[in-house]
């Protein structure tokens, strides 16, 4: 599980690949279609897609000769879940800090002020 997440994050660390993923979220596309907006070779785009494929983010389906690239939505659900749980952990910590700060507000005589 952790290995997979590492691959996913590494794959998404590249801005071009993130852009590709964003476009694939809208619709499947062929390698040529994906390559269009970038100033790079189709080979370079193919390489990016292989990295995404290796991370399990996309899959090449076999629709005749077209072989469109398809985004694996559930991997994103996994990623979102991990980040959301981390966020809740951080949030729980800051909720405790909120409580401490709120308590200080109601008892303003702190050590520093009375010292």
């Amino acid at each position, binding site marked *: *599980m*952790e290995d997979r*997440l*590492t691959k996913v*994050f*590494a794959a998404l*660390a*590249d*801005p071009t690949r993130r852009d590709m993923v964003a476009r694939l979220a809208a619709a499947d596309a062929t390698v040529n279609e994906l390559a269009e907006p970038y100033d790079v070779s189709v080979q370079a785009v193919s390489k990016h897609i292989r990295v995404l494929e290796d991370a399990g983010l996309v899959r090449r389906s076999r629709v005749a000769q077209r072989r469109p690239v398809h985004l694996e939505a559930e991997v994103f659900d996994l990623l979102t879940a*991990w*980040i*959301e*749980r*981390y*966020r*809740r*952990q*951080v*949030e*729980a*910590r*800051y*909720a*405790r*800090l*909120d*409580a*401490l*700060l*709120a308590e*200080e*507000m109601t008892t303003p005589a702190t050590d520093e002020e009375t010292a």
Partner: protein
Amino acid sequence: MSTGTRETIIEAVDGLPAVRITREFDAPPERVFDAHVDVDKVVRWLGPRGLTMTVQRWDAETGGGYRYVHADDRGEYRFFGSFHEVRSPDRIVQTFTFEGFGDSVCLETMTLTELPGGRARLVATSLFDSFEGRDAMLASGMETGVEEGYEKLDELLASR
């Protein structure tokens, strides 16, 4: 981002093994800063619920350092680091290591900005030394996150 919220925002930083946390508090920067350096206050909020936090070293000043242990009946989790810069009331830069988890070290930069109405915005950036290190940290949220999420809700309901 709207003002007046206390939502915790977590973002990845483009192209870096980093995580950025943004959070607002209903207290001025001086007080939020103080809660980060005064060890009696730190122990009350920093550690995960259900774990006792024992502080072995705490010199929250530029060039200082810290070491503490979180413990429960399942084991101990040891952390240490250096305070690179502690500048009241708006900036703390420190290193962070989770002992026993390889040689990885994280650089944490926290800044506080004053907001209208006696409030403060905290931005904390954690820069890891590898993408793997960052992912492992994110993964650590898996275990306690859900449980604490509900506790947070309880707390919220109780405070209204």
